[in-house]
């Protein structure tokens, strides 16, 4: 079925416009039950808000006073630092662990598996308590060749502040979850991609960096966004180290002075909500950025036989052991391409 003709012209001749029927104008179907239910919900919500506004226990004047208190905004900043530092470390470590788990070397693979088993199998609170006691377990840190005279010796207490311990504790726990997310992302990329890149003479590192990882990002970002938001909230556990300058611990300490617990809880919640809202917006834009070539945006609107074999992926959330904060992405190789455009989608939501 070959032909000797030269390349066909790209655009077929325009057909004459057929006659059109008038657009349908019909009476819309009413949903009275839906309307009643929605009104009821709105009413209930309004009642709750009005009631909360009037309730003395919330002590709104105190909330207003403390929400911009310098001790609180400083603590909010510390919480942000805890989140960012531990997340950055966790991402780097998570990518390393994910690549290790996909390694053909069984020793490397098992090591990564063991790490995940330990850090996902124990509560993060317990891990943080352990990190707080690290200077009792290991009084000093030596650098050098084992069983020989060390080159450098540090006293653990002197080099590791409680802040550093909190960051390490959060990061090492989080890395285990991110490793699974990254691994699922890497596996979601069609094998043909690796093959095509290899056939072009690209090295393993080039293939990873230029071809595989950018495509994995699309699958990795939504659950990682969830992990950032989750981490922001998990920082409230660092009191276990004990580290006490984060948002939650600081507001508890202030309420211990004022004997007025509830408004301080509201203040802390407002700050947490403020940060998570910002993170959700950021996640929305990141997702858009990495959906390039997959969504339905196209340079023009001309329709010509869209038989694209784009590999889509569907993300799903299933819980795993350890704190109920794990997100695992299930790769489903060939599926309809779809862009995540909704910042309020389940993947983008606050857990």
């Amino acid at each position, binding site marked *: *079925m*070959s*032909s*000797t*003709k*030269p*390349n*066909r012209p*790209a655009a077929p001749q325009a057909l004459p416009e057929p006659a059109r029927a008038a657009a349908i104008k019909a009476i819309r179907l009413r949903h009275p039950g839906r309307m009643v239910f929605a009104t009821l919900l709105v009413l209930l919500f309004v009642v709750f808000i009005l009631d909360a506004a009037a309730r003395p226990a919330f002590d709104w004047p105190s909330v207003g006073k403390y929400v911009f208190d310098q001790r609180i905004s400083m603590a909010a900043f510390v919480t942000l630092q805890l989140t960012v530092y531990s997340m950055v470390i966790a991402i780097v470590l998570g990518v390393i662990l994910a690549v290790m788990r996909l390694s053909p070397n069984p020793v490397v693979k098992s090591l990564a598996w063991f790490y995940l088993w330990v850090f996902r199998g124990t509560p993060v609170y317990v891990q943080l308590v352990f990190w707080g006691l690290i200077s009792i377990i290991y009084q000093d840190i030596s650098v050098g060749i084992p069983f020989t005279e060390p080159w450098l010796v540090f006293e653990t207490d002197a080099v590791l502040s409680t802040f550093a311990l909190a960051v390490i504790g959060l990061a090492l726990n989080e890395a285990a979850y991110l490793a699974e997310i990254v691994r699922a992302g890497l596996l979601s990329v*069609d094998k*043909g*991609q690796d*093959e*095509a*890149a*290899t*056939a*072009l*003479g*690209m*090295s*393993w590192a*080039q293939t990873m960096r*230029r*071809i595989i990882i*950018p*495509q994995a990002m699309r699958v990795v970002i939504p659950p990682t966004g969830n992990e950032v938001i989750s981490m922001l909230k998990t920082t409230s556990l660092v009191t276990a180290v004990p580290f006490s300058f984060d948002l939650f611990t600081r507001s508890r300490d202030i309420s211990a002075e004022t004997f007025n617990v509830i408004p301080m809880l509201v203040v802390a919640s407002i700050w947490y909500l403020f940060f998570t809202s910002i993170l959700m917006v950021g996640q929305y834009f990141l997702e858009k950025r*990495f959906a*390039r*070539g*997959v969504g339905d945006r*196209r*340079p023009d609107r001309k329709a*010509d*036989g*869209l*038989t*694209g*074999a*784009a*590999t889509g992926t569907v993300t799903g959330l299933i819980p795993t052991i350890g704190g109920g904060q794990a997100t695992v992405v299930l790769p489903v190789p060939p599926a309809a*391409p779809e862009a995540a455009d909704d910042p309020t989608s389940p993947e983008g939501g606050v857990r």
Partner: protein
Amino acid sequence: MTDATDQNSRAAASASTAKQVPMVLAEMVSKSFGSNEVLKSISLEVKRGEVMCLVGPSGSGKSTFLRCINHLEVVSAGRLSVDGDLVGYREANGKLYELAPREAARQRRDIGMVFQRFNLFPHMTALANIMEAPQRVKGLPKAQVEKSARELLARVGLADRADYYPAHLSGGQQQRVAIARALAMEPKLMLFDEPTSALDPELVGEVLDVMQGLAASGMTMIVVTHEMGFAREVADSLVFMDAGVVVESGHPDAVLSNPQHGRTQAFLSKVL
């Protein structure tokens, strides 16, 4: 760059022996996956500038053979060489030394490959797909790469689709971009693995046209296909494979009109 001098010396060496050295030479090549022997003592030869069509029922090992030529699979027994160079190994003092990944990659970039499912990079535009390897692998300057990429797009009839992502191109257009992407590395050999099998019937012709043009320009090609019309018109030789063995080979007209072997007859009666 050491790469360039290496290539020059190899080009010079192969030029002097160009007459004798076939582009692809397989001598009793076997390949097993575990206990499953997929290729059984394949021997064949593709001369410089020749087009060979490889046909056979599904599962007969056609893809595996192409992948061996590109060292995406490792041959279990026999010798396979491309342009005089052993694929995947270096021979010294009668011993074979496995090539390091970097050396294997260097061999691969002289061999273009086109896949049934196109395998374009979906996060890059058509133009970026074509520019990727010359820029990253050969390290050529961007302006030069872009110029030749646009020329290649024009050559496959897609000059106006440079900024389209693969998902916004039809199957036939995607496959033509994939051919242009492979050509961008200026290969001396092109491998096509059922390049039109995933296409709607009306899109097959546009891809075959591009391939025919390529054959006319003197490219050495091995084409796995079920398009017997293309084989008859374009190929210099046709090889029929079944269950990992070469059953019959020869000039396409001879094999297609007068198959000698029963299995060839049975297969051809289904696809013709």
